[in-house]
């Protein structure tokens, strides 16, 4: 399948010139195309922010909801219809700030969804305040003395919670990032991909060049099944590793745990309420 299957044609895109989101849009289209995913079977759920506008810019089903709330929506969509490929997408403020609590619990539930986080270490749409991942000392019109809150480390957090797939990519390296995102989509279980993405308008520190200088790829000798090794890599600060940090394929997915799918694999919308069973329950209440 060609990535152009996902093209929306001539649309007005709300991103700034040079925005890393363009790279992520390309990565997403390529990943879905290479995996032969039909647009009508793909649902992208997003929150609010520049990153969360992404699903409007490719052909797919879209639930563009509230700031921070993509994960519970995505979890429920997958639970209601496991035949759909579900991707939750948003920025660092959306997923790690406003929606931080859901991140913790989605990892515990382990639905078979992919979570793509556009991480530019700054708030874009609200014009340049610090985000949960802003680096120490980062000055903004609000953080006038520079950020002094410890930056949130999504990779370490996810590994600590035994997330079933944890990866980090760079929006500027479409080829490698596509491979990581494809692995995440194919992975059975919750998959987090944190994508480092320069923001040319509001982050003049973590530029494309900065990311290139401050990252390296995990090499082939690296074993993503070793949780402690993964955790060690996740807390490195000098240069941030890119690639697949951690995979735990032993965890059952949320949908697999749900009683509704133990025998019947059909999505909920194809089922009907069994009035005879309801009659039976009511009949028991007559004998009470």
């Amino acid at each position: 399948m060609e990535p152009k299957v996902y093209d929306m044609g001539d649309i007005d895109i709300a991103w700034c010139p040079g925005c890393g989101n363009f790279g992520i849009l390309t990565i997403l289209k390529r990943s879905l195309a290479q995996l032969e995913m039909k647009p009508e079977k793909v649902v992208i759920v997003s929150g609010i922010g520049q990153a969360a506008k992404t699903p409007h810019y490719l052909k797919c089903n879209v639930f563009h909801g509230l700031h921070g709330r993509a994960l519970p929506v995505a979890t429920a969509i997958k639970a209601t219809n496991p035949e759909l490929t579900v991707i939750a997408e948003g920025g660092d403020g959306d997923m790690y700030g406003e929606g931080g609590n859901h991140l913790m619990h989605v990892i515990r539930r382990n639905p078979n969804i992919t979570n793509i986080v556009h991480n530019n270490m700054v708030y874009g749409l609200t014009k340049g305040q610090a985000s949960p991942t802003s680096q120490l000392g980062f000055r903004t019109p609000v953080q006038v003395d520079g950020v002094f809150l410890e930056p949130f480390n999504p990779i370490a957090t996810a590994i600590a919670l035994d997330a079933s797939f944890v990866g980090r990519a760079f929006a500027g390296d479409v080829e490698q990032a596509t491979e990581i995102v494809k692995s995440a989509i194919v992975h059975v279980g919750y998959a987090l991909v944190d994508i480092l993405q320069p923001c040319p308008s509001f982050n003049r520190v973590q530029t494309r060049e900065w990311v290139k200088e401050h990252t390296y790829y995990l090499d082939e000798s690296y074993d993503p099944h070793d949780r402690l090794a993964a955790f060690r890599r996740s807390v490195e600060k000098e240069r941030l590793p890119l690639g697949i940090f951690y995979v735990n394929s032993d965890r059952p997915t949320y949908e697999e745990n749900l009683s509704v799918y133990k025998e019947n694999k059909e999505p909920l919308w194809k089922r009907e309420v069994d009035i005879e069973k309801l009659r039976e329950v009511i009949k028991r209440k007559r004998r009470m």
Partner: protein
Amino acid sequence: MRREEVERFMDKTAPMKEVSIVLCGEAGQGIQTVEEILNSVLKLSGHNVFSTSEFMSRIRGGNNSTEIRVSSQKVNAYVDRIDILVPFSQSAIQHLGERVTDKTIVLGDKENIGGGNGYMAVEVPFSREASDIGSPLYANTMAVGVILGLLSGDLEILQDYLQRFLGAKGSDVVQKNREAARRGYRIGNDLRRSGRVDIVLGASPEVKEEILLSGTEAVALGAVAGGCNFVSFYPMSPSTGVAVFLAQHAKNFDMIVEQAEGEIAAINMALGAWYAGARAMVTTSGGGFDLMTEGLSLAGITETPIVIHLGQRPGGATGLPTRTEQADLELALYAGHGESPRAIFSPGTIDEAFRLTRRAFELAGAYQIPVIILTDQYLLDSYYHVPSLDLSNVEKNGHLAKTKSPYRRYELTEDGVSPRGIPGFGDGLVVVAGNEHDEQGHLTEDAHIRREMVAKRLRKLRSTTEEAETPQLVGTEDYRDLVIGWGSTYHTIVEALQRVGRDDIAFLHFAQVYPLHRSVEDYLTRARSVIIIENNATGQFAKLIKLCTGIEIGHTILKFDGRPFSVEQVAEALRDHAEVK
């Protein structure tokens, strides 16, 4: 106590045809188990039963009480009067305060029944007899036996029930409980024969077959009948019971019941579930609903159906977390930013709780709007029996459209309702957005489209108003005075009016508070005076009626101490009202 002393306490002119029994003791003492068994056994004996409970917010200790009314006629409302009190703790009598009067017979262990000052104390050695059987735990079953004996109920039905109820715990447990029941029954029977208590209850065979439900169960079963197959919630009294009931029946009904990490997650999950083709409900109370309000707003603009069960309790913040109030009407009405339609039901009976919860799913699905079921602790924790529940014409996952490409999720239509597709059913792409959007669901800031979309969404209010529940008039059509009530006050007001006995007064009950049925104005203008009864401090429904009809309701009877209205209280207030005029 000697017989002549007893007679001083008892009105011997006529035997009681209806008895109000109150069980009171510490949390954790098993009062609810006694309630459950008594309700069943008395109903299976052909007596009408109604029970309701009040709790303190704690797991152990304090004092909780349950009132069980047993009668020849159906009486489904709370009364202050206590005919028989069974205290399980030393502070129970004090806890019940003025409800214990010289008409009250207090039955129980010596240390719990006090000195009998101002009431009749009858010692029943529950603890000793129970310990004699093997454990003080059998005191509960003994109490059931005593009450059944007093009411000359059928011991066999109790013995049979204990086998069914406790059979899984082994024959020893069953035998010992049966022994406790037997001993209790004998004591109750002796008391009755001694003339200390004179109760003659009629039994009706048809009652035996009726459906015994709590308000909680009625909401939950109504949800099942409405096709509910997804419930997400965060525990919060008094709404949790609905989710607990459904979780226990989830396998039976192909239902996902998810305890979310919070109410915000719960409502967003429910919206995701509807989007993907499920029929979802959240169940919550005031504080949790507060958290859901952004989700409610999202439901409005994305035109995603949602059913919200809002079990009210007194606020603000934590308020009185285990008690009752009707003070969240305005919250339900105005919650969520922006302007879009919604509907709010306020069931007042078990039948309505079932029927309107079922209806909520149909209405939400048909018009793609949020539908709120506004109940309260009093209704949810009350039990009684009904002859039948309407299972006819149950909707089979209706209102889903198979999509064709290109699909316009927000197609502009005459009535504002666009055919609702779901992903994976047809070739179309289903695009919904909480930003303003065009017909395809994609973002726009175009002023013209904004106006069209707002108007489209609001057009749905026309049909929902057309389909609003007709208020129910109880009493004469030729009323001079009209009493207004909504939600759980229904039975209390009906019984209070029977007591007041005026033939020129009627009661208009609202099981839907928004949008209001168009007949409201006519009902109000026909009355010489209108009195509204609300379990809140500011008369929220009176304000809403004024907003919708321009009619100011002159008289309010309000109660906001966290307790439900009693029949006596409403009757007295209505009598006072008549005198004032």
